[in-house]
C-alpha cells in the first residue's frame, strides 16, 4: 500500500465538488435502507401469496388501463429530472428549470392518477390480506413520491435562485438520484402487483 507522503498531496476540493462529497454517500445509505423497506413489503406479498388459499387475488387480472400509462408517466418524469440535472451541469438554467418543473408536474399527475386507480379498485383496504397489502404497499410508494415532489420543488426554487454551478451541485445530483430511485421502486411494485398475476402467481 502506498504511503502518504505529505509533500505529495495535490490540490484538494474544498467541500463537495461535482458528485464527490459525503452527501452522495449519505444518499446512498438512505436509498439502501429504503430499498430494504420495499424488499420487506414485497417479501410480505410473496410470502402471503405463496401460503394462501386459492383465489387469493381479489382481482385475478388487475386492470392495466390506468397503471400502464401511469408507469410511463413516472418514467418520463425521471427523464425530465435527468434533463434538469444536465441543465445545471451545462450551465443552462432555462433547461434546468424546465426539467425540474416538468418532473414535478409529472410526479403530481402520477399521484392524481394513482388516486383514481385506488378508487377504481373493486375492494377496500379491509377486504383481505391481499387488499391490505396492495393499499399499504402502493401507499408507501405514494408517500415516497410526495417527498420526491417536495425535493424536486426545492431543486426548482434553488435553481431559480441561481445557487448551483457544475462544480457546486451535489444537492442536485443527490435529489435527482432519489427521484430515480422512487421510479425504480415503482417498476418492482408494478411487476409484482400488475404483471405476476398474469404469470399465474396467487391465482
Amino acid at each position: 500500500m502506498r504511503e502518504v507522503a505529505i509533500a505529495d498531496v495535490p490540490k484538494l476540493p474544498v467541500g463537495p465538488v461535482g458528485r464527490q462529497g459525503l452527501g452522495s454517500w449519505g444518499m446512498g445509505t438512505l436509498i439502501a435502507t429504503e430499498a430494504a423497506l420495499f424488499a420487506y413489503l414485497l417479501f410480505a406479498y410473496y410470502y402471503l401469496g405463496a401460503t394462501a388459499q386459492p383465489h387469493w387475488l381479489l382481482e385475478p387480472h388487475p386492470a392495466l388501463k390506468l397503471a400502464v400509462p401511469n408507469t410511463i408517466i413516472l418514467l418520463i418524469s425521471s427523464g425530465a429530472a435527468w434533463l434538469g440535472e444536465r441543465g445545471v451541469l451545462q450551465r443552462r438554467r432555462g433547461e434546468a428549470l424546465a426539467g425540474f418543473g416538468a418532473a414535478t408536474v409529472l410526479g403530481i399527475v402520477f399521484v392524481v392518477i394513482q388516486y383514481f386507480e385506488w378508487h377504481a379498485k373493486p375492494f377496500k383496504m379491509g377486504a383481505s390480506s391481499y387488499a391490505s397489502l396492495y393499499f399499504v404497499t402502493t401507499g408507501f410508494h405514494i408517500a415516497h413520491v410526495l417527498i420526491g415532489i417536495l425535493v424536486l420543488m426545492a431543486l426548482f426554487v434553488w435553481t431559480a435562485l441561481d445557487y448551483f454551478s457544475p462544480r457546486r451541485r451535489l444537492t442536485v445530483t443527490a435529489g435527482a438520484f432519489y427521484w430515480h430511485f422512487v421510479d425504480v421502486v415503482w417498476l418492482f411494485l408494478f411487476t409484482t402487483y400488475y404483471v405476476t398475476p398474469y404469470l399465474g402467481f396467487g391465482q
Partner: protein
Amino acid sequence: MRAPDFRVPAVGPDNPEHQARLLELWEGEPGLKGFLSTVDHKKIGIRYIVTAFILLVLGGIESLVMRWQLASPNAHVLTPDQYNVLFSTHGMTMIFLYASPILSGFSNYLWPLMFGSRDMAFPRLNALSYWIYLASAIFLYVGFLTGNGPNDGWFNYVPYATRDYNPGLNQDFYSLGMVFLGTSTTMGAANFIVTAFRTRCPGMSINRVPMLLWGTLTANVANLLVVPAVSLAFFLLWLERQFGTHFFDHSNGGQPLLWQHLFWMFGHPWVYAIVLPAMSMVSEGLPVFCRRPLVGYSVVALSTVATMILGFGVWVHHMFATGLPGLGLSFFSGASIAIVFPSAVAIFAWLATIWLGRPVITTAFLYFASMILMFVIGGVSGFMTASVPVDWQLTDTYFVVAHIHYVLIGINVFPVLGAVYYWFPKMTGRLMDERLGRWNFWITFIGFNLAFLPMHLTGLFGMPRRVYTYGPDMGWNTLNMITTIGSFVLALGVLLFIVNVVKSLRTGAAAGANPWDAATLEWSIPSPPPPYNFGVIPIVASRHPLWEGRLTEATATSSLDRGFLLDEGKETMGTSALDAEPNMILEMPEDTLAPLLLTVGVSILFVGLLLKLWTAVAAGAVVAAVAIVMWLWPRAQLREREPEPAQPPQREPRHA
C-alpha cells in the same frame, strides 16, 4: 473575497497559536443554547452513554421486582397482568433502549478520536439521532408509566398483540414507539457507515483501522438493512389494530407467522448488532493490558464480518417450534451451527493474546477477560438450541432465558463496564478507583453467575419462561431463590460501579494523555480532548501509531505532531474509502437547533398518531418540514452552493 474551490492543505507543526485558532472555530456556545444546539460527537457520545445507562438501571429495577415475585412459589407481589407488563418492558428497555444505544455512544465518542478526525461525517444527523432516541425512549416510558407498557414480550407475537386480545393503548405505544426509535437507529447507522469509509486520517488504510471500526461498522451495515423489517412489522401491527387491515389474521388470508418472519429477519441480525461492537471493544482493550497487539487481527476482522453475513440467514431458528417444513429447519439449523466457527476465531484470538502477552491485571482487564468465559457459556447454550430436537425440548423454558442473559450481559454489559474503566480517563481526564473497581468487578461477576448459571437447570427441569408464579411442588423453589439472591448481588455490583463513577469524577487521580500506554490515536491527545480533537490531522503509517518504536510492523513512522493544519474554517480531512488517501477537505457544520426542532415536530406527530389527533399530526409534520428546510437549505459556508453573486470588491489594506 471568494474562497478557492481547490487548495493544497497546509502542513505544519502543532503549536499553541494554531490551537487557539482552532478552539475559536470549534468551541460551542456556553449555556442552554449551546447545550441544545451542539453537534460535537464527544458531547453526543457521552449523552448516549449516560441515557443508555439510566435505562439500564431502570430495566434492572424492573427485573429485581420480578425476581422478588419469583423468589418463592405462589407469591403475590405482582398480579399476572403487572408481571406481563414488567417482563415486556424489561426486554424492550434492555434490548432496544440500552444495548444498542450504549454501543453507539462509545463509537460516537471514540471513532473520530481513533480515526484522527475532528467529527463524525454528519454531525447534525448525529445530534438528530440522539434527540430522537431520547424522545422515543420517553414516548415508550410514558406508555409504561401511564399503565400502557408493552405486555406481550419484547418480540410481541400476534395474535395476542392484536386488538381483539389487547384492546388498551399498550400495543399502540409499543408499535409507534418502535417505529420512532427505528428512525434513530437507521440514521445512526448511515452516519457510522459514511464516517468509517470517508473520514479516517491519511494513511489509515483499511488494514490498519482500530478493531472498534470492524464491530461497529458491521453492526451498522446490518442495522441499515434490517431495521426497516421491524419498523414495517410494528407499523403493520398498528394498522391492523387501528385501521382494520388483515396482515396477520388467518381468517382473512393473513398469516400470524408473517409477524415472526419480519420480526426475526430483523431480530437475529440485531442480536449480533448488539454484541459485535462490544466484542470489538474487547479486541481493542484486552491487548493493551496484555502489552502486545491482538493476535490474528485480520482473521478476527474477517470473522466479525462473517458472523454478520451468516447472521442474515439464521432467523428461523427462533421459529423451530412453529411447524415449518423439515428441510427449511435443517438449513437454518446448519447455518446457526456454522456461526460457531467465526465466534471461535475471536475466542481463540483473545486467549492467544493473553497467553502470549504479559497481562497487567486491572479492573478493565478483568471485565474484558471474564467476558471470554461468559461468551463460551452463552455460545455453547446457543449452539445447543441451534439443533432442532434440542430446541423443541428447551423452547420457551428458562434455559433460553439463561442463554440470552449470558449473551447480552456477558458479551454486552461486561465489555461495556470494562470499556468505561478503560476509556473513562480519556473522557474525563481522571482515572477510576481501582480498589473499588475490584470490589465492583467481583461482586458483579459472582452475582451474575449466581443468578444465571443455575437458571439453565431451572429450564432443564421444565420451568416455562414468562409465567408470573409457580407451584411449590415443581422442584424449582431453591433454584429460583438462588437466582433472586444472585440478581440482587449483581445489582449491588452495578451500584458500586455507579458509586465509583461518581467518586472518580470528583476525586479520581489525574490521568494524563495515555494512562494505559495504549497504541491508538485517541491516546495521543489530551484527556479530555479539546473541542477540535486534533490540532493537526495526523498521518499514520501502522496499525499501532503509538507503539511504533517497539514493534517492527511499521515500514515508516507515523507523523502525529506535524500534519494537516486545516484551520481555514471548521474543517477536517476526507479520505478515500480503502487506502485512506486524502481526497477532499470537508467543511463541517456549525451548531444548530434544527435537529432538536425536527425532533419536537416528529414527537408531536407520533403523539398525534397515537391519540388519532389528526390536527396534531399535521402540526407536527409542519414543524418537521420547517426544520428540514432550515437544515437542508444550501449553505455557502458548507460549499453546498455558489456564494452570493459578486459584490463590489472590498479590498483590505495589505500589509506586506
